[in-house]
C-alpha cells in the first residue's frame, strides 16, 4: 500500500528501475510509512501481472503469496518481535530488539538459492539501524556483490546511524514525509477523532496507534500538568497507576509537555500541544528554565526503565515533584 504523500516518490523510484541498485536505502522520519513503501515496492517487483505505473495487480500468484506472507522469493529481516507488533514501524524511544547475525546468515543462504518463480528475490531489512554490529558486518559482502537478481531494500530513519561500510554499498532514497495538510486529511479519512490534536501530539507523523481510551487519559494528564499543584500531581500519579500503564507512557506525555514549555519559554514555539497554547503561556510566566532542564534530566534517567515493572506510582510522583519545582520560584524581575 502506498500513502497519498508517497505518489511522487513512487514516480521517482520507477524512473530508477532501469538501473536497479544492489540495495536501496529508504530514509525518512518515523511514522511516515517507509516500511509500507518498501513492502509495496517488494510486491511490485514480485508481481507477475504488473499494472500501469508499476502497481502490483493484487491477485496474481506472486501478489497473493506476498500478501499472505508466504512468497518463497521474499524475506524480511527484522528484529524478533511479538506478533501484534508485526507490520508496524519501529516506535521512537522504545528499545527494540536487535537484528542478529544468525538471521543475517539465513538471509545470505536464501540469497544464494535459485528463485522459485522466474523473477527476483527481495530482502527487506527494517529497521536497518537495529542490525547489531556483527549482523551489519555480515551483510557487507552480499550487499556489495549480491547474486544475480537479488535486491535488498533497507529502511532506516537516518543514514548516519548505519555503518559507513553499509551506507557505502547502498543507493540512498529519501522518502517524503506528509505535509501537515496531507497528514490531517489522511487521519480524518481513517476516522480518527480529534485528528488535529492527535497529529500534533505525534509530532506531525500520521502513523501511530490510535487508542481513544488512551487519548482521553492523556488529555486528563495534560490538564493536570497545566495546573501544577501538589494535589493535582498526586492525582495524576494515581490516575496512571490505576490504569496500570507502563511508565513509558506518562514519561512520553511529560517529555512532550516539557518540550513545549521550554520551547515556548525560550524560543516561542509549541510542537505537541497547540491546543494548550493559552495554558502554556500562563505557565511560562512562572517557569524557571534551569529547573525545567533538571526535571528533564530526571525524566531521561527514568526513560530506560519505561517498560520495567517497578513501582510506577512512586517513580512518577518523584518525577512530578521535580516538575512542580519548575514553578516554585515564581517570576523573578
Amino acid at each position: 500500500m502506498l500513502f497519498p504523500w508517497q505518489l511522487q516518490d513512487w514516480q521517482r523510484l520507477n524512473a530508477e528501475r532501469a538501473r536497479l541498485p544492489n540495495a536501496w536505502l529508504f530514509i525518512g522520519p518515523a511514522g511516515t510509512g517507509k516500511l509500507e513503501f518498501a513492502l509495496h515496492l517488494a510486491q511490485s517487483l514480485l508481481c507477475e501481472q504488473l499494472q500501469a505505473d508499476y502497481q502490483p495487480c493484487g491477485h496474481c500468484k506472486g501478489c497473493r503469496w506476498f500478501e499472505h506472507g508466504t512468497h518463497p522469493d521474499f524475506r524480511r529481516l527484522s528484529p524478533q518481535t511479538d506478533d501484534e507488533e508485526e507490520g508496524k514501524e519501529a516506535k521512537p524511544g522504545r528499545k527494540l530488539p536487535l537484528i542478529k547475525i544468525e538471521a543475517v546468515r539465513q538471509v545470505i543462504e536464501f540469497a544464494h538459492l535459485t528463485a522459485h518463480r522466474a523473477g527476483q528475490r527481495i530482502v527487506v531489512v527494517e529497521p536497518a539501524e537495529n542490525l547489531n554490529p556483527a549482523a551489519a558486518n555480515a551483510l557487507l559482502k552480499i550487499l556489495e556483490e549480491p547474486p544475480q537478481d537479488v535486491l535488498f531494500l533497507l529502511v532506516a530513519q537516518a543514514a548516519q546511524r548505519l555503518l559507513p561500510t553499509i551506507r557505502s554499498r547502498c543507493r540512498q532514497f529519501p522518502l517524503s514525509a506528509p505535509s501537515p495538510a496531507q497528514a490531517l486529511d489522511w487521519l480524518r479519512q481513517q476516522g480518527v477523532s480529534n485528528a488535529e490534536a492527535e497529529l500534533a501530539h505525534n509530532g506531525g507523523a500520521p502513523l501511530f496507534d490510535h487508542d481513544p481510551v488512551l487519548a482521553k487519559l492523556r488529555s486528563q494528564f495534560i490538564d493536570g500538568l497545566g495546573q501544577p499543584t501538589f494535589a493535582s500531581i498526586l492525582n495524576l500519579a494515581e490516575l496512571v497507576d490505576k490504569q496500570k500503564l507502563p511508565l513509558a507512557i506518562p514519561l512520553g506525555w511529560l517529555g512532550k509537555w516539557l518540550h513545549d514549555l521550554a520551547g515556548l519559554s525560550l524560543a516561542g514555539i509549541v510542537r505537541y500541544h497547540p491546543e494548550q497554547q493559552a495554558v502554556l503561556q500562563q505557565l511560562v510566566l512562572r517557569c524557571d528554565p534551569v529547573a525545567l532542564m533538571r526535571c528533564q534530566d530526571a525524566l531521561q534517567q527514568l526513560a530506560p526503565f519505561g517498560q520495567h515493572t517497578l513501582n510506577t506510582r512512586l517513580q512518577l510522583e518523584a518525577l512530578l515533584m521535580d516538575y512542580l519545582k519548575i514553578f516554585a520560584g515564581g517570576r523573578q524581575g
Partner: protein
Amino acid sequence: MSYQVLARKWRPKRFADLVGQEHVVRALSNALNEERLHHAYLLTGTRGVGKTTIARILAKSLNCETGTTAEPCGECSACRQIDAGRFVDLLEIDAASNTGIDNIREVLENAQYAPTSGRFKVYIIDEVHMLSKSAFNAMLKTLEEPPAHVKFILATTDPQKVPVTVLSRCLQFSLRNMTPQQVAGHLAHVLEVEQQSFEPAALALLGRAAAGSMRDALSLLDQAIAYGMGEVREEGVRAMLGAVDRRYLFVLLDALAAADGPRLMAEAEQLAQRGIGFDSVLAEMAVLLQQLAMAQTVPAAIADDEPEREALFALASLIAPQDVQLYYQIAIHGRKDLALAPDEHAGFNMTLLRMLAFHPAHAQPDSVAAPRSNTAAAATRPAPVAMPAQPDAGVDGSAAARALLAGLGNRKPASRPAAQEPGTAADAEPEPAAPAPLAAPAPAQPVTPAVSAVSAVAVAPAEPVVTAPAPAVIAQAAPSVAADDDERDDEDETELDNTAPWDETEAEEAMPAYAMAEESTAVDAAPYQFDGDWGGLVTQLGTRLGASRMLAHNAVLKGWSQSRLELAVPDSFRHMATRDYQEKLKTALAEQFGHTVELVVTIEELGLETPAMQGARHRQEQLAQARICLENDPVIQQLVRDMGATLIAETIQPVQEL
C-alpha cells in the same frame, strides 16, 4: 543482462586501473617482479578504497599462467576464473559472516594440500577484524609456519581490532583515502566511457561527498544519474546531496550566540525538512565547538587553509570560552539522549533549548562582559524569561564577526565587505557554493604519533590534515568545578549537585582538555610586573581574554610601561580591534596587572611576530624536527630502500606536548 551498479562494473581488474594507491601498487609490483613474496599481506584502509580489489588482482598476479607478474594477463584460464569468482585455488572468506572458529579450522586444514590448478593457494580473508579471538588463534599457527604454496591476503577497515600477534606476521599496506580531485577525475572517466553527459562541477561535489572512498563516489554517481534522469548536473547533485558542508552549523551557533530562540528552532525545522540526521548534526556540532575552543586557546593551531577559517574565528569571538565548553558538553549528552526523546526532532530541539537555558543572556544578564563566571555558578542564578531575550549589547556589538558569518557560503568570504548591516546580512540566503568536505574534521581519526613504530609502509591518509587534533594539543587540567569555589556563594553550594546538568565525571571523559592552567597560576599573590614579553602575557591570560583573544593573539607590542600598552594590529585583523574587543582586553589586563592599564591600539603593519605567528612557527619547528627524526629512522630508511615506500612529508604530525 540486468544493470550492474557502477561500483561493481568498474571494479579495477589490473593494478594500472587503480586510482590513488600508487604507493601500494609500486611496492607490490616490485616484490612480484623480483619474486620476493611474503606469505601474508594485510590491506587496511577505509571503506571503498580498493582493499578487496587489490587482493583479487594480487591473487591473479600470483596465479597467472604467464608466470608470477605484476601485470596478470587477464586472459588465461586462471585470470578469467579469478575474475569470475570461481577459481578453485582462491578462497575468498567473509570473516564477518563466518566468524566461528569451525570455519577457520576448516580453511586451515585445507591449506596443507597443494593447489589444484594454480601455483598458490590464495586465501583472501575480508573484514578480518570480525574474526573471533579463537579464530585468530587458530589462524596464528598457520601464519607462523605456512606451507610454501599458501598466501594469505587479509583486508580490514579496522586494523585496531586485529591482534598484534597477527599484525606482526603480515606485511601491512595502508591504503589511502582518495582526494576529491582523484575521485572527480575518475568519475569523469567513467562517465565518458558510459557516454553520460555531466557537468564537471557536479563531479567535484560528488568527489567531496565521497569522503575519500571510491565506492561511495560510484554509489553516489549511480544515485545522481538516477536522480537527474541520466544527466549529472551540478544543480541536481547539490539538491541530492543536501548538506555536504557545515554552513548550517555556523548558522545554528550564530543564532545560539545571539540567544535567538526562534531562529534556532526555525533552523532545526529546516534541517528536518532537508532530511539531515540530528544525530550527525550534534556530532558535527561537537566537532565545531572543539575547533572553536581551539581557535580561542591556540589560534595558530587552526590551519591557514581551513576552509571556514574566517567564520570560525568570527564565531569564536562571539561565544565566551566557557560557553563553548558548556555547549560542547550539552551537544555530546544531547546526542546520547536523542534515542530517549519522544522523537528525534524533539530531542534535538531540547538540546538546543538546554543550551539556551544556560545561555548568559538567560542565566546571567551581564556574563558576556564577565566571562569568568563558571557555568555551574551561572546556572544557579536563573533569570526566567517569558519570551526570547534580546541579545545583549556585548553580542550585538560584534558586527564585523556577524557580517562575516553571514557572508559564509560565498565563494570568497574574505573578499566580502564586512560593513553590511548585520541584520540584513544574516538574513540573506547564503548562496550555496563550494561546500567543504564532509569528512574534513573527522574526530575519530587518531592522532598519529609522528615518531613511533610504523608498520611495513609508512603511509598516512593523503587528505591534508585540516583540523589540528584538538584534545592532544593543550593537555592541561580539565576544568574543575573546584577552581571557582571561592567565587560561589555558600548557599549555592548545595544546589550545585542538582544543578549540574549531568554527571561531572562522565562529562569530563568526553571533554577535550581545555587550557585552564591560568586558573591555578593566577592565584599568585605578588604584584604583577610586566617584562615586555607580550607573547608570554597572552599565554598567561589564556581563556581570560575571552572575546578579545583574537585581538591579543594578532597584535604586536609597540611600546609599554607598567600602566600603558601600545599594540599594533595588521590591517587584516582590523575587525578584531574594534572598541568592544579593546574594552574586553583592557578588562583582562586590569585583572592581571591589578590596576587599570591604558591601551592604545593602532592598525599598522610592523612586520614583527605576533603571538599567533609565534605559535605557528613553533609548530613548524616541531614539524621539521619530527620529519628529520622520521627520515633518519633506520626502519623507515629500510622501508624506503627495500619496499619502495615513500614518506609523505605533509602528513607528518608532531606529537604536541606541553
